[in-house]
């Protein structure tokens, strides 16, 4: 099957430090993929490269066969690549409803926002997403006053409102309770199929729950790929996570 999103030999250098080093990765349509790796493995830089925030020093990124290098962030987002940030980033001074109304799919030109109004379909979508993430009762309070977990969910809802083809999700369950974590896992699994989902996460139990192919990043390149169980038994993975065993 042809890849929907493909990184070919991508390297990123920050003043001589190689955050990504000859990274190859491809996602097929409808796939759910987890990416793990110790701190500093380049997980966030990898998302920055795909979404246009960082330009690769070498290599290329293809989305539906088209190169994304040099295209600005908002155009990449409009092509259908959505991103959720590591720390929940919602607009604190707006209500959850207004957060979603900004994110909902449609024209984002200033003139549309000034002179147009939301279509009935867009309004329904916002209402539906508020229900999905359980924020209906909080729809009209400032998003800054939500709990950490609610903010995480609001940001996931904003991502869904964009209706992207590819969802790049950075640490969606950081700081969530066990029950919230479980529900987030269910949500992401249900999205795969219609969407292509890439999850970056530290929580190994959560990755186990997702039950999907795992890519391990280390020092900016792919260390290995496979199921979670296979990956966990791989001696190279054990080595980078636990450190080199002292021969003495």
């Amino acid at each position, binding site marked *: 099957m042809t890849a929907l999103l493909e990184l070919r030999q991508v390297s990123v250098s920050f003043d001589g430090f190689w955050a990504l080093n000859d990274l190859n990765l491809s996602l097929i349509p409808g796939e759910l993929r987890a990416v793990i790796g110790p701190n500093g493995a380049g997980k966030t830089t990898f998302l920055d490269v795909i979404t246009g925030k960082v330009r690769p020093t070498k290599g290329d990124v293809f989305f539906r066969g088209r190169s994304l290098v040099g295209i*600005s962030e*908002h155009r990449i987002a409009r092509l259908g690549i959505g991103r959720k940030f590591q720390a929940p*980033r919602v*607009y604190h001074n*707006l209500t959850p409803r207004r957060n979603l*109304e*900004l994110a909902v799919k449609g024209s984002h030109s*200033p003139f549309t*926002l*000034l002179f147009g109004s939301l279509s009935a379909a867009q309004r329904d979508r916002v209402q539906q997403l508020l229900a999905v993430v359980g924020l209906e009762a909080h729809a009209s309070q400032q998003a800054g006053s939500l709990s950490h977990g609610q903010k995480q969910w609001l940001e996931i809802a904003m991502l869904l409102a964009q209706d992207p083809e590819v969802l790049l999700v950075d640490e969606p369950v950081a700081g969530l309770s066990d029950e919230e974590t479980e529900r987030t896992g269910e949500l992401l699994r249900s999205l795969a199929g219609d969407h292509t989902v890439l999850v970056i996460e530290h929580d190994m139990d959560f990755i186990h729950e997702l039950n999907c192919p795992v890519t391990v990043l280390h020092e900016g390149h792919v260390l290995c790929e496979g199921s979670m169980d296979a990956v966990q038994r791989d001696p190279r993975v054990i080595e980078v996570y636990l450190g080199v065993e002292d021969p003495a």
Partner: protein
Amino acid sequence: MSSSPSLIVFLRRWWPWILIVAAALILPFVLPPFRLNLLGRFLALGIVALGVDLIWGFTGLLSLGQGIFFALGGYALGMHLSLNSLEPGQLPEFFSLYGVKSLPLFWQPFNSPLFTLLAIWVIPAIVAGVLGFLVFRNRIKGVYFSILTQAALLVFFNFFNGQQKLINGTNGLKTDTARFFGELVGSDGMQRYLFWITVLLVVAAWFLCRWLTSGRFGDALVAVRDDEPRLRFTGYNPTAYKTLVFTVAGALAGISGALYTVQSGIISPQFMSVPFSIEMVIWVAVGGRGTLIGAVFGAVLINYAKSLISEQLPETWLFVQGGLFLLVVTALPDGVVGWWRKGGLRHIQAMVGWPPLAPTYPGLDLDPLVQAEKREIEARALAEETGSTGSGGLP
């Protein structure tokens, strides 16, 4: 019977507008011409302050160069008035001082009142739009944006200050002795009309800013201010929003500058001085960022205080202004209006140890059904009490 509650509802809803209309109608006949003129000038400054609130309070762009657009509007009207009252073939007086024999080309269109009315806001808007687009497209923001706008202000100041042959350099253009519709611009009658026009335009500018900031467009501005990268990754191009709103603020500054010019009688490069543009930011900070009405309030209040204090103790004003700014930065981050909206009165009551009024539910007090139930419960409680004392039994 039914007319009095509806009157109260009407008053409660419309009192700010009734107050404004009443003040606008009565003040010109109550205030001495000098004070009325001051009030008109300060209200005119309220318009440029609204623009500053739009770009700084809502969008997070701290411009220290609004004086550029303010002065451009002032010059546009000043040039028209310099030409307006001349005999055919005559040139404005200052040209002869520098040996200029014919009217420079760029002065020609200002013969037309219609062109001037457009130029007052379109020229500053275009300059703001071009400057803004270049700056925002290159993702210059924060303190770098502020420094850049101040540098641009200095460039404009030096240019206007040095061009004697084009626009009378440092002396500026006088408008007091010019005629408009056959009447002296500086006359009391004309100043009264200008006061009314100013009041109308302040209200119009406020409505414009309110419309811009209240809907989804306003939400996008707040999003630019609070988390611009996030907005980019949602598929928005912040450059378009910032350029548009900066252009609108430029146009508002131009209108403000024109109104200020005809009410103070002169336009000179001093309107592009660095301190004046910083003062605009202080008015908004003191009045309340992101509140709109606070910007107008701050502009009028601070300038009135400035003129009153300067009349009595000329040396002290700068200290008072500095103190006000410190007060806002340290104690009132939302400005006076922001503080008021967040329950300012209750803070004072708490400070002086006077407990705030407990919330009441007048709706309940008036509802006959609730009152009947209340009486019933009270009667039952009373009956139980007397019943228990009657039986005399203790557990």
